[in-house]
């Protein structure tokens, strides 16, 4: 059996397969043993509870999904008292995704979560397109990212994963700002900005208007961004965006991701993560190779 183990940041993952924030939770426990995953990533948590956006929040388009959940979550306090403990029993890494609308908010959340040893890393969601002013995430400016990550770095020894948005001109600049200010890992891509119109009502099919686009349709965009970021920084990358099967996962590893995450695909097949773990194992065995040889093996030309 191939060894899928990877070292990523300060963590050891038993395999390079995890889940995309907001698409997976301990509820999947009923279907399989979540300890089998390389890591678990929670839905994004904010300082205060968030009710989320008005429904309708979902719209399927050709090969893609639009969503505008609006970061609905119980807030960090309730997360700690009600949810965190549920992750205790899984023998895998726990990544808590956090977001705020000011740098201070991010730091306050981290301060509250820092004492909990079962949290291995934070994923810093600076990319959700739905909540920031003007519809743009504040993760679109390198200087803001630099300041945010530097401040967070000072508060914690846990791994810091910075999750990037693809909705920028030069993603390399944002990635570099994150790496230089102390991020351990970069994850990408968050959703692409998208819109679908109901021609009957002449309104957005998503009540909140512009939404986040995910699924197979964004895979070429995600691969392009992961590749560019892999060229720009030396820290490891968790790649995601439209991954549906082992071949997709391999594409991401080849362009430079050290691990992959499935989002929308969990909805089509709740066992997709296990399928891909098995698929990677088989691929490595069949091709008599290992992860190290695969990761970043892509040559642009």
């Amino acid at each position: 059996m191939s060894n899928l183990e990877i070292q990523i940041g300060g963590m050891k993952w038993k395999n390079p397969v995890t889940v995309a924030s907001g698409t997976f939770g301990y509820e999947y426990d009923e279907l399989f043993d979540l300890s089998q995953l390389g890591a678990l990533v929670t839905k994004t948590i904010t300082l205060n509870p968030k009710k989320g956006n008005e429904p309708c929040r979902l719209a399927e388009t050709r090969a893609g999904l639009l969503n505008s959940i609006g970061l609905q979550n119980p807030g960090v306090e309730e997360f700690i008292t009600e949810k965190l403990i549920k992750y205790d029993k899984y023998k895998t890494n726990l990544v808590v995704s956090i977001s705020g609308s000011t740098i201070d908010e991010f730091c306050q959340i981290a301060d509250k979560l820092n004492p909990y040893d079962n949290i291995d890393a934070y994923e810093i969601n600076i990319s959700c397109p739905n909540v920031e002013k003007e519809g743009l995430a504040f993760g679109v400016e390198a200087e803001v990212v630099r300041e945010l990550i530097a401040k967070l770095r000072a508060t914690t020894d846990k791994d810091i994963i910075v999750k990037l948005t693809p909705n920028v001109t030069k993603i390399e600049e944002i990635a570099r700002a994150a790496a230089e200010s102390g991020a351990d890992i970069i994850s990408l891509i968050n959703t692409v900005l998208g819109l679908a119109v109901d021609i009957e009502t002449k309104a957005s099919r998503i009540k909140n208007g512009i939404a986040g686009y995910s699924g197979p349709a964004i895979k070429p965009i995600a691969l392009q961004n992961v590749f560019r970021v892999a060229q720009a920084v030396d820290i490891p990358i968790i790649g995601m965006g439209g991954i549906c099967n082992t071949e997709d996962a391999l594409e991401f590893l080849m362009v430079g991701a050290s691990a992959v995450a499935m989002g929308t695909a969990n909805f089509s097949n709740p066992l997709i993560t296990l399928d891909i773990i098995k698929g990677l194992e088989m691929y490595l065995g069949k091709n008599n190779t290992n992860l190290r040889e695969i990761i970043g093996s892509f040559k642009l030309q």
Partner: protein
Amino acid sequence: MQFKILPIKENRKLNSRYFVLKVPDKSISAQSQPGQFCEIKDLESDEPLLPRPFSIYKVEENTISFLIKIVGETTRNLSQKKTAEMISILGPLGNGFKIPKNKSVLLISGGIGYAPFPFLKNKLQKNGNEIQWLHGGKDKYDIFSYDITNYTEDGSIGKKGLVTDDMPFILGKNDIHTVFACGPNQMLKKVSEICEFYKVELQVSMETIMACGMGVCCGCIIKYAENGEVIYKKACKDGPVFDGRKVVWDE
């Protein structure tokens, strides 16, 4: 809750609008309550990406079945599935109806809203309830059974009119403990107004677009009024059955 890949055992066309899909199963059925649903995906086509929610229609020995209306891509594809073709099923999902004991209850279904009621009726009977069932549709193709009181808008079968037409009369005359309703939002809204007026308990089964089906993604929100505040409930987990008098019916 289980995720299974199962072969179609029977695909029975009722008319150009409806069909019944039956798959072999013991374990999902064993866990199922009336009002719960399953997420079903056609494994032969990549699209639509998302599975679709369907109420559990009938639980028989060794099979579970679904009554499905053709409205879009998934339902069209499923309607053409042949015996032994594979689908995936995730379920049972959701809360299901609360079943009273030894009461008088009224079932109101509109169109495909019929789907969860045969299973519900079964359980209600087992619990000693007395059942009246009114069903409504546009025309005769929306009618599934002659053993219940049917209404059609065009009068082609049963009474001409809406399924809600006689409700005030029935609620006024009878000591109905709970109304169960499933159907288009407009109908449910009307039913909830009537129940509110007569102060009768109302359990409605709600439809929304869903993704995960298990309370993870927060995609399937229903607006709900509690303590003078509008809160959000997850149709897939907190529902699909809600107290109809608290659901906020947008236009």
